[in-house]
């Protein structure tokens, strides 16, 4: 009989104990999938939502614009840069935008805020949070014209309604103060008061005229990727190209450091939680395998007496751990799959707890708790738990190999 068969039969000697231990591994799979899946889902949602608020996953902008934004700092030949960016694989869309600060005034009140000037032809609900968040009226109909879309809170503060006029005052590329009149065409509501109370969306061409920009000048090219995880690599590739030598290419971590920091902190606490779960699973396996080895000391002593090597005994117990881990993973996958499908497709509706949504790192998230898993996460969970189970079996296996036949044969 080979060691593999012997190991499987040994495991089946105590069916209940084996199944309980395998279930603990399976439970580990369920928890790891839930924690990791929640992370993969929420971090992606946060990053995508944050990127759709103006700067994209990758931002191409004039040097130093990110650190100290100013109308003076602008991209020239934005169209050719845009075409170059669009050549990269994984780029979903590129939008030309002008971002700046302005004073918005109604007949009754003036409030400082931020404007994003966009070309509505380049924007949609996939790459622009404000398009998605429209609650009243219409988004801008064209890049020219004199429309403005306001956040609901900003409109409320200015006591403005659809169709009313608003004056926005800012500084142009020469540093001169300039003003223009716009008519409110729509209102958006992201749910984050700091955004809804300070942001306005303006037509790109009109703002170019107001700021005395050339038609090919904008402040930022917001690049949306089909997978945000490629942002760092793509940023490096773009920055290395000659036509990007005079501009700055930043990824979302650089343009939204607060969000990146919060995600990093949250990830750390997520990892710690998962580590604790892993330790609990490992302790269960270690306990089972150690008990199994200790109660078979006499049997191992006999095996060694008749000529089995310490190495073979080590291999035997490691094979038992291997099959236990595999059984646990299989049960884990069977149990976790329906849970994962439900959570990834339907999710848990937490509206009762969070209302219409909640803000994290200045980014609005909807209250449906869902999970998703990247391929790498699935592989990491399976390999991680499998390795953990094997590792937990290593000490008992080492103990088995250290059995002294003459001592163990004395035990009854």
């Amino acid at each position, binding site marked *: 009989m080979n060691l593999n068969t012997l190991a499987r039969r040994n495991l089946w000697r105590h069916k209940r104990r084996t199944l309980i231990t395998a279930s603990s591994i399976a439970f580990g799979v369920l928890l790891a999938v839930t924690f990791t899946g929640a992370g993969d889902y929420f971090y992606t949602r946060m990053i995508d939502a944050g990127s759709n608020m103006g700067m994209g996953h990758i931002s191409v902008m004039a040097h130093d614009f990110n650190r100290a934004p100013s109308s003076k700092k602008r991209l020239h030949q934005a169209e050719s840069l845009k075409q170059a960016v669009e050549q990269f694989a994984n780029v979903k869309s590129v939008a030309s935008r002008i971002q700046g600060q302005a004073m918005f005034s109604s007949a009754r009140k003036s409030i400082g805020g931020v404007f994003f000037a966009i070309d509505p032809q380049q924007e949609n609900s996939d790459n622009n949070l404000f398009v998605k968040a429209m609650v009243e009226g219409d988004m801008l109909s064209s890049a020219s014209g004199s429309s403005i879309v306001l956040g609901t809170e900003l409109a409320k503060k200015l006591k403005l309604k659809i169709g009313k006029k608003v004056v926005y005052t800012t500084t142009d590329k020469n540093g001169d103060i300039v003003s223009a009149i716009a008519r409110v065409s729509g209102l958006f509501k992201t749910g984050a008061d700091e955004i809804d109370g300070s942001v306005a969306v303006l037509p790109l061409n009109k703002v170019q005229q107001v700021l005395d920009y050339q038609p090919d000048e904008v402040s930022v090219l917001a690049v949306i990727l089909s997978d945000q995880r490629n942002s760092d690599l793509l940023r490096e590739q773009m920055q290395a190209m000659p036509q990007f030598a005079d501009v700055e290419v930043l990824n979302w971590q650089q343009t939204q450091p607060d969000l990146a920091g919060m995600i990093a902190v949250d990830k750390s606490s997520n990892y710690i939680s998962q580590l604790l779960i892993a330790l609990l699973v490992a302790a269960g396996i270690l306990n089972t395998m150690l008990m199994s080895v200790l109660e078979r000391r006499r049997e191992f002593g006999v095996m060694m*007496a008749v*000529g089995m090597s310490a190495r073979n005994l080590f291999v035997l117990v490691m094979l038992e751990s291997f099959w236990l881990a595999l059984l646990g993973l299989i049960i884990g996958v069977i149990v976790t799959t329906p849970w994962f499908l439900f959570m990834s497709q339907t999710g848990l509706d937490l509206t009762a707890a969070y209302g219409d949504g909640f803000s994290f790192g200045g980014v609005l998230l909807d209250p449906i708790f869902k999970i998703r898993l990247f391929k790498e996460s699935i592989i990491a969970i399976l390999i991680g738990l499998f390795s953990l189970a094997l590792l937990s079996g290593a000490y008992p296996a080492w103990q088995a190999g250290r059995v002294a036949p003459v001592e163990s044969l004395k035990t009854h």
Partner: protein
Amino acid sequence: METIVELRNLSKIYQQGEMQVKAVDNVSCDIHKGDFTALCGPSGSGKTSILNLIGGLDTASSGQVNLEGVDLSTLSNTVLSEIRKNRIGFVFQSYNLIPVMTAYENAAFVLDLQGTDKVECRDRVMKTLADVGLQGLENRRPDEMSGGQQQRVAIARAIVTHPAIVLADEPTANVDSHTAESLLDLMQVLNEQHGITFLFSTHDQRVIDRAKRIIRVQDGQIVSDEHKA
């Protein structure tokens, strides 16, 4: 006559707390090929300790154990393990079969460790099981067999590799007298017809009566060595 085991001034001292216990005290003797020897004496006299030293399961405090001319005291655990696998057969008081294996698999266990060809392994195991009277019980697990049948499997496991010597530690202690007699019949046949060398540790008079040679041990020392005519 070919010498299988040579013991020369063999001693084994165990430390029990503050005290030193001399389990084997300056023992010297030879075991020859074809011997059917009983190492007898009261409990605690040192029989099992001598058997363990000959089997390479324990190391001597002083003196020498030579098995087929090889001094066991100079060998590493790995080499000792190889010698046990290839040259020594063990039969224990409480059978010590592997519970998850059938009679066939238990008997074949050491041959598997040796890496014996499957066909040859099967032939040898089936023949040996037949020799020990277990034909037809090959697929039974230990918990499906009587004590006597289990001990027969243990004997089959011990002799199937054609060892130089079979060391049997109180092989009849856990079976009834009828079974003990039949086990002794079996071992006697294996000794006489197949020339297998047996060394028993025992205080069972039935074993002593059947032995060709009786070595009496007391307080770790050989007090008599009697060859029957």
